[in-house]
């Protein structure tokens, strides 16, 4: 008897319709109507556009050209060129050019984690496009510019969660990383 009533009066379909009507009338919509006005913000630690941290002292990159990021990169998209200079009778290695091919990058963030001096960062900025390949090939100037654009909006001092991930034993980090308080 009950099943016949359910069959004739479409009980289960009406129940479903009642649910959607309830959601339509009494619940807040989850969709964003105007994307231009409300831009969704990513959470801290989001692995977005690359940037090289600009040093306050030298106005250049902090990078010490140790090639660790270049070697850890799974997609081999970091290119570093170094020059050897003589300073006070000592031979020193210095960074000549630092470049990241963002179109090859897989955004794993390993490079940020292995950097001993916190010179590299995957910023929380994600809305970027390129019209050709050159637009997504970030050379040193471009990477420093990315940092300036990012830090102008971010809170100071900025500290990327992947510079010193929470819960990892302290002795695995370099001394610079252990003491780092943000830039």
């Amino acid at each position: 008897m009950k099943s016949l009533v359910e069959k004739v009066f479409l009980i289960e379909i009406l129940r479903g319709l009642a649910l959607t009507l309830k959601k339509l009338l009494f619940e807040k919509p989850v969709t964003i109507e105007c994307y231009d006005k409300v831009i969704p913000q990513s959470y801290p630690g989001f692995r977005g556009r690359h940037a090289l941290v600009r040093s306050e002292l030298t106005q250049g990159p902090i990078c010490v050209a140790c090639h660790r990021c270049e070697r850890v990169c799974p997609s081999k998209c970091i290119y570093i060129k170094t020059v050897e200079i003589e300073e006070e009778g000592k031979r020193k290695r210095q960074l000549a050019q630092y470049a990241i091919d963002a179109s090859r990058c897989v955004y794993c963030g390993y490079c940020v984690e292995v950097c001993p001096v916190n010179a590299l960062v995957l910023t929380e900025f994600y809305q970027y496009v390129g019209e050709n390949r050159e637009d997504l090939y970030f050379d040193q100037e471009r990477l420093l510019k990315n940092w300036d654009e990012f830090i102008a909006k971010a809170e100071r001092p900025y500290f990327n969660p992947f510079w010193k991930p929470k819960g990892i034993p302290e002795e695995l980090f370099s001394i610079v990383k252990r003491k780092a308080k943000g830039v």
Partner: protein
Amino acid sequence: MSLVLEVNKKQKGKDSWEEPFYLNMGPQHPSTHGVLRLFLELEGETIVNCDPIIGYLHRGIEKLAENLNYNQTIVLSDRLDYISSAANNVAFALAFEKLLRLEVPRRAKLIRTIVSEMARICSHLLWLATHALDIGAMTVFLYCFRDREWLLNIYERICGARLTHSYVRVGGVRRDFEPEVIEELYRFVEEFPKRITDYETLIDTNRIWLKRTKNIAVVSTEEAFNLGLTGPCLRGSGVSYDVRKFRPYDAYSEVEFEVPIGQNGDTYDRYRVRMIELRQSNWIIKQCLDRLSETEGEAVLAENSPDLLMPEKVREVSAQPHPKLGVMFKPKEKEIVPVGEAFASIESPKGELSVYVVSDGSSRPWRLRIRTPSFVHISAISHMTKGHMIADLVAIIGTLDIVLGDSDR
């Protein structure tokens, strides 16, 4: 190409009214869930034969892994089954930890269990959404994506990425949970069972849903074994097999959960199994979160775990001087990881995912073999579709829950 030639051969010299109709479904068809191509032999609208053709998303992950070190290989595992990256990461990490003989800290184990159950919920929600959309239920699709978005936001807070997490590391995880993440997860765990009830209200007893799923693609227990099905597809056929119960890994041995099984082995049973699994996953997350407070402040990475940047080759100089020639520099290659092989399998959302790794002592796997559930499940399509209508084919692809990135690797 050979298939096309075969068709030409078959069609020659036959009356055009009697010949079967050959149809290519895919690789761009939206309901094949990726780039699966199905070569169909039809009689009217009934499927006589169905040949799945794969390989459109082949990237050579097994070969690529041979040129990357163990930690870098985990990045590749994200791209296998890209809906549940965290579960794949766990499978790879487990195999490598067996090889390196590492003991993972308890907190890391709990966190891994949480993220892999989140991956299960993510994957099942996407499955329910697309399966329902294929069959014709639009509202479920929207509701499921709304809830999946919530989980993806939590993932973003945990590891900084929404889809390709690379969160698990050999020897633990990359980052501990922030306190806000745990609060948000508690909120999710409280709210989610109500959402599952909503989906069930919409489709569980809906007559159209029942007609489209009951007695479609019935797989008996024996057939399921012969086809090599695993995961919810096997459990839908009435086999209580779950790697989480039989060979517990991570923290599954200390949590309680039930393994749901179906009775008839049809599409509806597989749907029910997955819906119950959603509730079970939710329960597992809740238990793990409760236990997480016990291990507050512990490290999430084993102390002797390898650096992200593993050395490529280590040469040792022999210390003993030669009696006549003095100090000899006989470079001896040091083993970075022990020589040998390791195997690990996990219950990924789609089925059983196994990783087999052979090491020659260097920091890179000498050979990596991945057994993915989707590849095996696709081979079952041919058997399951025989005698069904072409509209049911869409439901069958949906019920197998295949991801082509997983199958083609």
